[in-house]
């Protein structure tokens, strides 16, 4: 059987096994996910003890956040770090590779989750805790964090599915009719998206025989470019669908307003951004040559997404559906960043996704409080909430400005970078679309604000008539919810006023995406020549 034709010097072959144990220090790369998964399992075991659930969940989450802060600071100063499972050396083992982009997103996701859990702390019905509400939240975070930290494309697919199955559970917890309706559309279209991703993965492996991201970045340039463009097209479709970019965005406004507002907040903050992250990762780091070819397509997608989002928001009467359209508009900005690429587009798109995580979570949280006070989800019947709660009106207005990208809030800085990038590449179409998006978002948001807060009473009644349906929510229930929203909005304001660290991080993240040298080195592979 054995042919003697193989005369290979053993010294020429790359080593396959790691001979020294991974240093304990490096376990920080996987610990956030380990805590998420083990914590979720443990919470399921003790699901009968309601009092224990909240405290345990918060403990796990704070531990994860602390680890991720450490990880973020470490990659910020020392460059990307990597860990490969089972002592196999890359590209054989499954690698976790963390750069500034992944660590920053993972940290933002954990912060958003902590805020949502605090917000929901007094509101969860006993029934939902018994059904494993907190376990599902931990699993969702495991999927999201895993997607941000992994360095292996097939592993990314697995994390997508972990995230998807946890979100299915959260989507239908409570079992109201509207939730089942939303979950059918959400479930089918998102499962379809991950299947497209799997098709792309299959072809990619068939073409270049590796799924390790650093290895793909190394060899993708040397492969048959037409086939690589097809793979990149499949990834664009799959992740675009996950991120709810035009024209595959229909599932988001059909489903995000159906579960409880805290779960909407979690979805609006985290899920679409994982799609956006995967797009940044694949298009910029892995297949830059294919991205250049697909550039016109991405530009068109970005322009339409930028315009469709706020225009859809203007046409809605359901508050949370309107916010769903604003989420889509934000994805347009990330797509614009990918279309512009280069030293402005990539940090702009990444920073916008980070901003969108925090802003959209806060938006849904405030909307949930508004719905509680007014007892309806119809913007036309909400009038007069300024009088019932002036704090909410300020929070909502700040969020409208942040989403529209007005200074001094966080959303301004990524928009500035994107605009600078679009103008420096003479892409007037994208520049105009980014500005029109900001204008339309402020119009849509301000219209909602005027109807919900400014107006005295319901639409169609005399302006002097007050709204009899408003019922103040009891202090005990609303205090943690308002506190959580205030903290998140304060964070958005603070980061908008002191953007230096964000700019610096975004610059490092973008340079690592545009030039994979440090990333590849961290994974222990030879640096490619580009």
């Amino acid at each position: 059987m054995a042919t003697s034709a193989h005369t290979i010097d053993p010294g020429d072959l790359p080593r396959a096994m790691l001979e020294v144990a991974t240093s304990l220090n490096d376990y920080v790369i996987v610990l956030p996910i380990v805590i998420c998964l083990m914590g979720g399992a443990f919470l399921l075991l003790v699901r009968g003890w309601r009092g224990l659930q909240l405290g345990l969940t918060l403990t796990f989450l704070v531990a994860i956040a602390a680890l991720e802060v450490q990880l973020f600071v470490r990659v910020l100063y020392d460059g990307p770090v990597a860990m490969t499972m089972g002592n196999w050396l890359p590209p054989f083992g499954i690698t976790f590779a963390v750069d500034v982009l992944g660590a920053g997103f993972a940290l933002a996701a954990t912060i958003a989750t902590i805020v949502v859990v605090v917000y929901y702390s007094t509101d969860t019905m006993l029934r939902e805790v018994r059904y494993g509400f907190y376990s599902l939240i931990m699993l969702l975070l495991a999927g999201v964090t895993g997607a941000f930290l992994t360095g292996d494309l097939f592993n990314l697919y697995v994390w997508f599915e972990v995230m998807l199955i946890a979100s299915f559970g959260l989507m239908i917890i409570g079992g109201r009719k509207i939730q089942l309706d939303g979950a059918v559309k959400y479930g089918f279209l998102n499962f379809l998206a991950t299947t497209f991703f799997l098709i792309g993965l299959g072809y990619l492996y068939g073409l270049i025989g590796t799924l390790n991201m650093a290895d793909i970045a190394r060899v993708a340039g040397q492969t048959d470019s037409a086939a690589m463009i097809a793979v990149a097209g499949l990834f664009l479709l799959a992740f675009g669908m996950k991120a709810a970019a035009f024209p595959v965005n229909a599932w988001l406004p059909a489903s995000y307003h159906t579960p409880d507002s805290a779960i909407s907040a979690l979805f609006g903050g985290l899920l679409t951004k994982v799609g956006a992250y995967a797009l940044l990762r694949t298009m910029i780091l892995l297949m830059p040559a294919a991205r250049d070819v697909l550039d016109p397509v991405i530009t068109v997608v970005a322009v339409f997404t930028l315009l469709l989002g706020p225009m859809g928001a203007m046409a809605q009467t359901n508050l949370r559906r309107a916010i769903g359209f604003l989420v889509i508009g934000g994805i347009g900005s990330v797509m614009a960043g990918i279309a512009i690429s280069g030293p402005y587009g990539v940090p702009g798109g990444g920073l916008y996704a980070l901003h969108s995580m925090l802003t959209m979570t806060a938006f849904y949280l405030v909307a949930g409080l508004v719905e509680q006070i007014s007892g309806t989800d119809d913007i036309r019947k909400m009038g007069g909430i300024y009088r019932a709660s002036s704090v909410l009106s300020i929070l909502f207005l700040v969020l409208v400005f942040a989403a529209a990208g007005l200074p001094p809030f966080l959303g301004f800085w990524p928009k500035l970078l994107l605009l600078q990038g679009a103008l420096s590449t003479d892409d007037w179409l994208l520049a105009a679309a980014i500005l029109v998006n900001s204008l339309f978002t402020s119009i849509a948001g301000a219209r909602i604000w005027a109807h919900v807060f400014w107006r005295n009473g319901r639409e169609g009644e005399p302006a002097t008539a007050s709204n009899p349906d408003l019922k103040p929510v009891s202090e005990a229930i609303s205090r943690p919810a308002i506190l959580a929203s205030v903290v998140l909005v304060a964070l958005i304001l603070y980061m908008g006023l002191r953007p230096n660290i964000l700019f610096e991080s975004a610059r490092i993240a973008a340079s690592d995406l545009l030039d994979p040298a440090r990333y590849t080195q961290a994974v222990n592979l030879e640096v490619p020549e580009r």
Partner: protein
Amino acid sequence: MIEQVLAALVGIFFTAAIYLILSKAIIRMLLGIAILGNGVNLLIFTLGRVSREVPPIVSDGELIPAEGFANPLPQALILTAIVIGFAMFTFLLVLGYRAYQELNADNTDTMRVAEPKDAPRPPLSY
């Protein structure tokens, strides 16, 4: 030879799946999803070469396996994909049935609780 046949079969699976998913009936969409999943698994299986001739084993004194072996890694990948796909499909099946019971609709055209058909006009006072 068998690869070409399998490739053609993958094409047929994809065609049937897309046709079924484009339907409005939930049952047909479910069948489409199931066929699409199997099509993708078959695709990855075929990409790893299908052959019984050469075992994927490094023989004594050699450093790499003999030319033309069937790559075992795609087979490991589809094992994962089969498990995940099956779990998702079962969930969607139960969800579809539950939606049929609760909403009395097995057609996306009549499933309009979350997106009402005669949606009210947006507020016009500002």
